[in-house]
């Protein structure tokens, strides 16, 4: 597996100063003009160049003008090394003309099927055409025809005609996964992207080639024809599928008027973070939209009596019912137990622990879950399938799940509070769970889902998914990273922190705030590994915890 690249930190003490569009920039020798330009936020149009891959230099659109250069003043920015006193123009007439020329060449054989192309709206051919070309087609001969709608793997669809042969995908599979499933065959304008028969692109990173395809040649079979890019909004967050904590953006539907579908998650795409995932994420992680979309608990439910159908309730009614039961148990000196899980954010665990320990005086609670470890691949997919196992360990996991279950089974627990722990779903056939749940009188579940666990509850308090809330997670390497709230809470669901806060206050405890930022500051006062950090410090790429978390 190729190491994640970071040219910025490459050790090269020798620095040079150059000007790009009149702005001075200092860059290490060995850096290319396109990289130096990005330091100035000067975006040079490009297709084949990708900072995480080797330089191919084939699309020819990143052309810049080198003032006073010997020979051809127009050179590609992706392969031109910076030099002292170099003067680079990215917007000169020569450059603009050449960009328009290159675009015309790229469009000569490109099909005009934008109306049915998934990439429309986020296609670099469209973007650069609008920015740099806008000339009428002069093509009056036939286009080269190639194949369309070719499934090249379980998750990726290929359209050879749309392909501009930038070879980003080929290089990704050669250099990052080392699986080399794609190649460009033939030559000239008959060059085609293809696989070898029977050797599909089915590695766990295959959807990255969809992300890096600058046009609509490679599309995701999961995302295909599901949503138009311009109806999607993105929220920067962290993948919840394992302990690596890949930085991702989740795209969800948003429309002011046609809003029935608002908040539905459509896809995850990786965000650049050199300390975590580079530019990539695994295909497994891309299944996270189901966490947001499927079986969502949208309405609080109170099971009135043992006979009755569960009845819908307002959040206030459901909270009141929960508080009354817990209070009853507490006042009669009976035990209240709790089960959270490492799916929770640090802040949620923190308030959960306050509820159990400080408010209810119970130490029969656990921050562990019964979910088993899964596969790891020595790259981004971690065996630990919770996003915040490290956070749970840092706060103290409490009892083991089995101890809590034993307590319930023995009949000494009157009320069990479950926070985002789907134990009955993870171990549907485990008799210990059934016995435990039968042993308690009241089951209060805070959950995003209608599932086997939550449907057993006496009170279900629906909470929000990972893209509807803030909070922090600590990944396996000890990096604290932030979630951000994207869409509004689903249905009548509320953030877990709010629900926990209401329970604590209803039971006589105290909560300064249920804002993740403020809860975070509170917990940094108690957790030495986090001391001194603020929520804002975490920025977009997170911060390593001090000491060995």
């Amino acid at each position, binding site marked *: 597996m190729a190491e994640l690249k970071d040219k910025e930190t490459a050790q090269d003490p020798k620095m040079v100063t150059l000007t790009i569009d009149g702005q001075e920039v200092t860059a290490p020798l060995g850096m290319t003009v396109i990289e130096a330009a990005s330091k100035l936020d000067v975006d040079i149009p490009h297709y084949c160049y990708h900072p995480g891959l080797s330089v191919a230099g084939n*699309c020819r659109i990143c052309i810049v003008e080198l003032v006073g250069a010997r020979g051809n003043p127009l050179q590609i920015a992706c*392969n031109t090394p910076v030099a002292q006193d170099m003067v680079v123009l990215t917007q000169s007439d020569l450059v603009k003309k050449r960009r328009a020329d290159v675009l015309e060449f*790229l469009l000569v054989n490109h099909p005009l099927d934008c109306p049915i192309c998934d990439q429309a709206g986020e296609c670099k051919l469209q973007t650069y055409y609008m920015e740099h070309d806008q000339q009428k087609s002069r*093509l009056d001969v036939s286009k080269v025809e190639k194949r369309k709608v070719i499934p090249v793997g379980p998750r990726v669809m290929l359209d050879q005609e749309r392909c501009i042969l930038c070879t980003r995908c080929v290089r990704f599979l050669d250099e990052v996964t080392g699986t080399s499933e794609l*190649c460009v065959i033939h030559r*000239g304008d008959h060059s085609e992207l293809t696989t070898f028969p029977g050797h599909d692109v089915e590695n766990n990173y295959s959807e990255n080639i969809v992300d890096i395809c600058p046009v609509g040649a490679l599309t995701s079979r999961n995302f295909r024809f599901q949503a138009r890019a311009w109806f999607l909004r993105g929220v920067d967050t962290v993948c919840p599928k394992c302990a690596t904590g890949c930085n991702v953006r989740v795209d969800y539907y948003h429309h002011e008027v046609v809003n029935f579908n608002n908040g539905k998650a459509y896809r995850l795409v990786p965000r650049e973070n050199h300390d975590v995932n580079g530019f990539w994420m695994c295909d497994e992680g891309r299944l996270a939209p189901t966490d947001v979309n499927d079986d969502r608990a949208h309405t609080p439910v109170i099971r009135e009596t043992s006979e009755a159908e569960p009845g819908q309730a307002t959040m206030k009614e459901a909270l009141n019912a929960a508080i009354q039961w817990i209070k009853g148990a507490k006042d009669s000196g009976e035990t209240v137990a709790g089960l959270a899980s490492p799916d929770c954010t640090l802040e949620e665990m923190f308030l959960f622990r306050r509820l159990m320990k400080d408010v209810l005086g119970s130490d029969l609670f656990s921050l562990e879950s019964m979910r088993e470890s899964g596969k790891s691949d020595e790259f981004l997919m971690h065996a630990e399938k919770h996003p915040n196992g490290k956070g749970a360990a840092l706060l103290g996991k409490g009892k083991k799940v089995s101890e809590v279950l034993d307590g319930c089974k023995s009949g000494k627990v009157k009320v069990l509070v479950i926070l985002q722990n789907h134990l009955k779903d993870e171990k549907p056939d485990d008799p210990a769970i059934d016995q435990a749940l039968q042993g308690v009188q009241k089951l209060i579940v805070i959950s995003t889902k209608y599932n086997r666990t939550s449907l057993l509850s006496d009170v279900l308090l629906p909470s929000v998914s990972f893209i509807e809330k803030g909070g922090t997670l600590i990944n396996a390497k000890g990096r604290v990273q932030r979630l951000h709230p994207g869409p509004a809470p689903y249905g009548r669901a509320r953030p877990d922190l709010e629900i926990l806060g209401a329970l604590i206050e209803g039971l006589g405890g105290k909560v300064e705030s249920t804002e993740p930022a403020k809860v975070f500051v509170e917990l940094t006062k108690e957790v030495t590994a986090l001391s001194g950090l603020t929520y804002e410090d975490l920025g977009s790429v997170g911060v390593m915890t001090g000491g060995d978390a």
Partner: protein
Amino acid sequence: MSSQQTKSAPLTKFQLSKESEKKVEVALSRFPDRRSALLPLLWIVQGEKGFVSDEAVLYVADKIGIAPPHVLEVLTFYTMFKRRQGGKFLFQVCRTLSCEMGGSGWVIDYLKEKLGIDVGEVTKDGLFEILPVVGLAGCGAAPMMQINDDYHENLTREKLDGFIDEIRTKGEVAPAPAKLYFGDGQQGGEKERPVTANFDLKDSHKIEVYEKSGGYQALKKALDLPADGVIEEVKASGLRGRGGAGFPTGVKWSFVPKNLGKPIYLCVNADESEPGTFKDRVLLELDPHRVIEGIAIASYAIGCTTAFIYFRGEFGPQIKIFEKAIEEAKARGYLGKGIAGSKVDLEIITFRGAGAYICGEETALIESLEGKKGFPRLKPPFPAVVGLYACPTIVNNVETMAALPFILKKGAGAYQGLGTEKSPGTKLFSVSGPVKRPGVFEVPLGYPLMDMIEKECGGLLPGSELKAVIPGGSSVPILTAEECQDACLDYESLNEKGTFLGSGGAIIIDQNTNMVDALRNLAQFYSHESCGQCSPCREGTGWINRILTKIVSGDGDQEDVDLVLRTAKNMRGATICPLADGLAMPVESYYKKFLPEFEAAGRNASGVEAGKDPGEANP
């Protein structure tokens, strides 16, 4: 993460003969990097099976240890590799400009009619297949073709009948190459001929003949000098690269960084594919030892102990001659351990391409040698620093090598005494087109172009009037008949006339050739040979070809004609290598110099003369 792809399916379906297996093992152990054996393995497979199947791809991928797509992309890049069983005798009819002027069109039509098959089909008896190809380095013997590896040149209907009968009755056909060198004393006047001195001798390709003429003495002399001394001598001679770019050879050598602790490689470019050029072919056939001696001298100078010579795939017969010569030279101690009694070692490895013009570009040649597609590399870095296997590498043309023995033997001064002050020495020219004696001629640089046509070539054919000359291979700008009158064949004179000496492939054009047709022929070639890497070239060459095809077939108009020019200009200087320029320069110069023909094509095509409403021609 474990690699899923290199584990291929069990190879039960595919097996090679014991003999081929042995060849495979030899090929695998022959190169510093195993992947270099990719093209050789594909040749071995095709040699036995007739084509390369998917099972064969898996077999080769497994042998080399790369993923099957890496085999597939290489296999489909080179046009000589076949993906299906073809005819036992493949008639590859050359369609390059010289051959088209010489009538290749009728050859293909005649064969189609006679054999009852279309291009791409195989006769029912499995014997015959016709394939139009471009540029087989037989331009002086147009029309010509190769039947499998063998040359059959100066084709006539009677000859074609004879070949077909021979194959049907005997199951084989004897090669029928043309004479492309005329050793009858009319060569470049009285001056010395450093490269072709032995061409007149009987059995000039044999080592005895070469030694008898003083061969391998220059190598001994070179080995007595320090390596830097050899470089200095070559620098002083003013020898410039004879492949086309004309870069000073000694200067190029001096770019090689020594003491990097890496091997240094010499790659000799025998990928002669530029339409109109066939000088290296003749040189390799008639005097391979001069080339070998040159390679030994160059290798010593730059500190190389493993030299490669990259032949174009179509040079089957030339490779055989050359490999025989290598064996002879080894036997006499000129190659191998301690060459010519010195402490210097040298091995020469022959390498066969497989049909890709672009591999004549030095970095594409290196890629091909490494078992990859012939994609020119981005520069920097330059091959002298990072070349073959990421080691310092010098790529030199065959003719450049052949000039070295003279320079070392007689001294830089003697070489400089030939030619002009700025273009010293001699150069091989291959002349094709409607002249009485098309062929290869060695003349001192600065030689008048018209003298070449009149004296060396014996003048134009009866009834032919000189219209134009492409002086340096098809990629260079054209000269009109008028410009030819005072043109001299050296780098500077031709630059002054706005063109290049190039490879020395001079294509003579007479009044019978329409320049729009000629340009379309070139466009077909360049679009077919574009490697497909850079977007302007990949899309532009094909687009120009399609527009010109439309114009030539009478469907275009003036706008199309103008579009060809604009598209050509837009490709220029926009790509990694000069292939796109190789089409753009002819487009611009033909258009400029023969404007009336292009305007007429636009008018004709607009349908004005055909009686159509011009408005309809291009709605």
